[in-house]
């Protein structure tokens, strides 16, 4: 497993993706799956940034591969609990006039991975997604 902490900013995404790219290359993650994991990382990372704006703590990203199983975990420190599994779902069947931007990211993450868990301990929120490579 490898991990690294990143500044709480959208501008850190380039560094985040540089870190994931090195992991994919080292672990020989298939190209198509790399985009899926990057999507999950970005959505969770930016969710932490957006909803804990007053927080100055960095966000930790951990990546691990065991066999065909890849696990991505992001941890936000010194925050109130927010269980994303309880976030309201966006109705994707609505017509354009009734659609509004926002709320889709984590819903899509759930759609793209095999497992998503939320853990809150000692004022730390951790979201972990797991996907089996096929």
């Amino acid at each position, binding site marked *: 497993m490898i991990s690294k902490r990143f500044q709480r900013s959208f501008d850190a995404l380039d560094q985040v993706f540089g870190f994931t790219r090195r992991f994919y290359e080292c672990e020989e993650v298939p190209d198509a799956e790399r985009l899926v994991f990057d*999507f999950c990382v970005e959505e969770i990372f*930016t969710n932490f940034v957006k909803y804990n704006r007053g927080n100055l703590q960095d966000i930790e990203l951990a990546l691990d591969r065991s066999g065909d199983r890849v696990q991505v975990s992001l941890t936000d420190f010194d925050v109130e609990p927010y269980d994303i599994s309880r976030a309201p779902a966006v109705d994707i069947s609505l017509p354009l006039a009734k659609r509004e931007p926002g709320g889709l990211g984590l819903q899509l993450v759930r759609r793209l991975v095999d497992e998503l868990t939320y853990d809150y301990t000692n004022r730390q929120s951790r979201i972990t997604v797991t996907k089996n490579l096929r």
Partner: protein
Amino acid sequence: MFEIRLGDKGEVVCEGRLDASNAAKAQAFLDALAAPEVVDMARLEYISSAGLGVLLRTQKRLLQSGGGLRLVNANRHIRDIFRYSGFDRIFQIDDGI
């Protein structure tokens, strides 16, 4: 890396990765166009929900004038994201310009 520009046929060309760090750039470019019609995604590798928000805001603006975006040449990953987002119901998505 993300670039957005006008192509030879007046289409909007997107290249690279449209993520939260450059969504504002894409939004500003599209907002400056009165009636964009085609977005060529042949060289767009990746899109996140921030990019989806850019497309949705633009589509809603164009709806008021009876227009709309046609999204062309999207790769498999982006097409999956569009389908899971319901964007295939609110955008015309085609293989070629």
